[in-house]
């Protein structure tokens, strides 16, 4: 009895551990994930009540949802409580000059042909005052404003365009979609918001690259792109240069919405740190990307070149709701060293005369494991739906793997669905042929790989395509001979 009393006494006397003082002046939230942290993030960003509620709902779902078990790799355990979910955006300066930076990294920059100032920025060196990326970005911003295009950070959008945000946020990727999407809903830090008004053709490739240079957006990004009737936009994400990043887990969400006759082209080049030769320390890239062709004759096209990250796990998909809408997916995924990619797409045909096209090129080298996982679903009302899928795998070395899991579900007898897949290696005779013409083996392999991936690389905007080609060569370095 008395022992019980003692415990009660002790408990009563203790400070309330779970309380959390919201200190707006703080720059970094303490590690841990709970409702208070979410309130803190929301307050810090001065968000309206509905968004806070929305975040909290996401958190509840995150607690409820189970970790997936179907993926074709061993899911590393992530300790969600050890992560700090908010850090004030500021330029981190790690080195005083480029001389201190890892020479290996500099060599890669050189091969990619990245300007000196950008090299500094990417590797975290203090940037000269001369190089002002912010001013570059603002020039573009003015031009876009004249057309009525909204292109801003998510935080800005919350303040300036809450009505648009509220209308579209979470309509393509529901909060309950998967556990990482739910987590993103709860703690998303920032991201981009794009709105293209009716009938406007965006005059330039929108890129987060410029914006990220100005501001570090962190690991839980959220992108929302809305293309209103008859508009067109091409959006580039990522960057070919290896990004220095301390956050291991990246769980972004991207939502695309295309209205009648609108077209969205979304290109990704991802080259995050893949970890060392034993696979230690790489980035986990767990992203939920989905677009909806809401209107008639709309089109969404995903292009991705995935060369980085220890684990790439994402399935950019398209819901083809509007009649005559088109969904496309072009992908090159390279896994080398101990990298893992489990990627592919979902094409959900709902409207009539909808078409989808999937071209996936996987390249595995050394110990890399590459999985294509896709779903083509034709609903009962999707008359005359048409799909073509091609997924090819290229194996370099005898300890890597290529896997294909294409799910095809058709509930309509007018659907035409085709799927084909091949697996092959780089032929010795092909390399020999090139050797004979004075091209060394490594270069020969690069040529063959680039030829193999050409169909996808051609989809990228020109500057990106050139860099992506170089990137493939660099990623495959050391896999031959």
């Amino acid at each position, binding site marked *: 009895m008395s022992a019980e009393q003692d415990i009660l006494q002790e408990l009563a006397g203790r400070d309330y551990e779970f309380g959390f003082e919201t200190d707006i002046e703080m720059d970094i939230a303490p590690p841990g994930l709970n409702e208070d942290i979410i309130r803190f993030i929301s307050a810090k960003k001065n968000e309206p009540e509905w968004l806070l509620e929305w975040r909290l709902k996401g958190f509840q779902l995150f607690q409820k949802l189970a970790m997936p078990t*179907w993926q074709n790799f061993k899911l590393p355990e992530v300790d969600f409580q050890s992560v700090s979910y908010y850090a004030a955006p500021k330029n981190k300066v790690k080195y005083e000059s480029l001389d201190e930076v890892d020479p290996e990294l500099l060599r890669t920059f050189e091969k990619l042909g990245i300007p000196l100032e950008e090299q500094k920025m990417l590797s975290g060196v203090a940037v000269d005052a001369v190089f002002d990326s912010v001013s570059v970005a603002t020039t573009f911003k003015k031009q876009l404003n004249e057309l009525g295009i909204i292109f801003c950070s998510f935080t800005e959008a919350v303040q300036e365009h809450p009505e648009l945000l509220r209308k579209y946020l979470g309509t393509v990727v529901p909060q309950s979609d998967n556990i990482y999407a739910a987590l993103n809903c709860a703690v998303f830090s920032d991201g981009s918001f794009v709105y293209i008004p009716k009938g406007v053709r965006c005059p330039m490739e929108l890129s987060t690259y410029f914006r990220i240079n100005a501001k570090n957006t962190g690991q839980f990004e959220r992108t929302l792109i809305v293309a209103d009737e008859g508009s067109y936009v091409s959006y580039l994400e990522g960057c070919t240069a290896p990004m220095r990043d301390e956050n291991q887990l990246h769980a972004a969400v991207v939502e695309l919405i295309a209205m009648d006759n609108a077209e969205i082209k979304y290109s990704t080049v991802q080259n995050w740190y893949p970890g060392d030769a034993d696979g230690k320390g790489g980035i986990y890239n767990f992203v939920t990307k989905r677009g909806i062709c809401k209107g008639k004759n709309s089109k969404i096209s995903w292009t991705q070149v995935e060369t980085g990250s220890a684990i790439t796990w994402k399935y950019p998909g398209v819901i083809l709701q509007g009649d005559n809408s088109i969904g496309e997916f072009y992908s090159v995924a390279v896994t080398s060293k101990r990298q893992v990619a489990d990627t592919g797409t979902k094409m959900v045909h709902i409207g009539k005369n909808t078409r989808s096209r999937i071209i996936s090129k996987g390249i595995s080298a050394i110990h890399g494991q590459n999985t294509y996982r896709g779903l083509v679903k*034709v609903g*009962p009302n999707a008359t005359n739906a048409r799909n073509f899928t091609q997924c090819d*795998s290229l*194996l*370099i*070395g*005898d*300890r*890597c*793997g*290529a*896997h*294909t*899991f*294409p*799910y*095809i*579900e*058709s*509930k*309509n*007898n*007018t*659907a*035409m*669905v*085709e*799927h*084909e*897949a*091949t*697996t*092959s*290696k780089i032929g010795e005779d092909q390399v020999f042929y090139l050797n004979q013409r004075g091209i060394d083996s490594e270069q020969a392999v690069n040529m063959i790989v680039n030829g193999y991936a050409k169909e996808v690389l051609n989809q990228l905007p020109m500057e990106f395509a050139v860099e992506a080609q170089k990137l493939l060569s660099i990623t495959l370095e050391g896999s031959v001979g």
Partner: protein
Amino acid sequence: MTTIASNIPSLYDTLPAQFSTLTAGAQWPEARKEAFDRFQALGGFPTVKVEDWKYTNVIPFFRSLQTLQLPAPIAITEAQLEATGLLLPDVYRIVLLNGELQPQLSELPPAKQATVLKMSEAAAEPAFTAHFNNSQKLAEHHFAQLNTAFFTNGLFIEAKAKAQVEKPLHIIHLYHNTSSLLVNPRHLWVAQEGASIQIIESAAGLDGSGTMVVNSVVEAVTTERSQMSHYQLQTGGGQLRFINQTLVQQRGKSLYNNYTFTLSESELVRNNLNISLDDERTETHLFGFYIATGNQLVDNHTSVDHRMPNCESNELYRGVLMDKATGVFNGKIYVHEDAQKTNAFQQNNNLVISPEANIYTKPQLEIFADDVKCSHGTTIGQVSEEALFYLKARGIGDAMARSMLVKAFAFDITAQVKIPAVRKQVEQLATRYLSAAVNN
């Protein structure tokens, strides 16, 4: 693992009691016990949450079942056999009733070519002890475990070393029930070194009452340089539902051909065909053809496991889906690290005739070796309007033209059949189903 114990209270809950009464004093008690434990550990009957059963919900089919107790045997007349319409000329006819050999209706091959025994009498055979319950893949299948636990009887066939079994063995599976029943036949077929054998299976249900789920397991082993051709003619009437496990282990330089033709009225047909290539230079051909009508669900899950170098596998499955039928195809090719120089091909084509038919197909490749040639393809489509127009322009009527095109699609597969009588029977059956569809 997902348990659905509560979904089938009447059957699943009674299984432990039925297990202790039905298998009391039965042969191979350890194997049965182990399998039953494993079945329970796997979660009992698989739900759609289990990846391999994602599109095939077996629960409703088991809900009405009560027992695993076979009814008292009945006498079967020659006339009853005739009436099934399945008899083939020039074969060794072997008749089974609920998995039990009927010697009076059967003609066995000469003993120097092949041994044919009831499983219950084969325990002393060296080939039996070497291969019975030996397939590693058994452990993966819920229903194979259930079968091992409860199986009643079946056929042990051993083609003797270097023997060329002259005529095909035609096994006619007859099923009879007086109440809703789950029956578990079990077979073991071995082709010894250099032997060659052809086995044809047909099935028919006799008049009875209630429904019947046939959960059968065939373990087949082809040893060095042997050849086995295996025809599964899945015929049979409306009261039958089939869950088949065919587990094949191939040794060096052997050849295994499988022909699976599903032309039945049964509401559920699920085939699990597993081929394990355990040695070098084997050759495997899998051909499948299915027609699904009414509310039928035809599900083919095949897997080819390339474990060793220099093996070749070739798979071609085609299906025609009508009415509200559902077709499922899951083809898996697994190439292990050591299986260099593998040549694997897989194709699945589906012709969807009715607006309400569904098809789920998943050709799956898992490849860990680099010096391989693997490809797969799958299509879903309908009769080409262009081809139809071409025929019509030549004065052929719509129905006739359609029928020609559908048949051309289907008979690509039946053309692979090496036994003329089997081909004729299959094509006749197919024509019967197809003409019904085309004339609609």
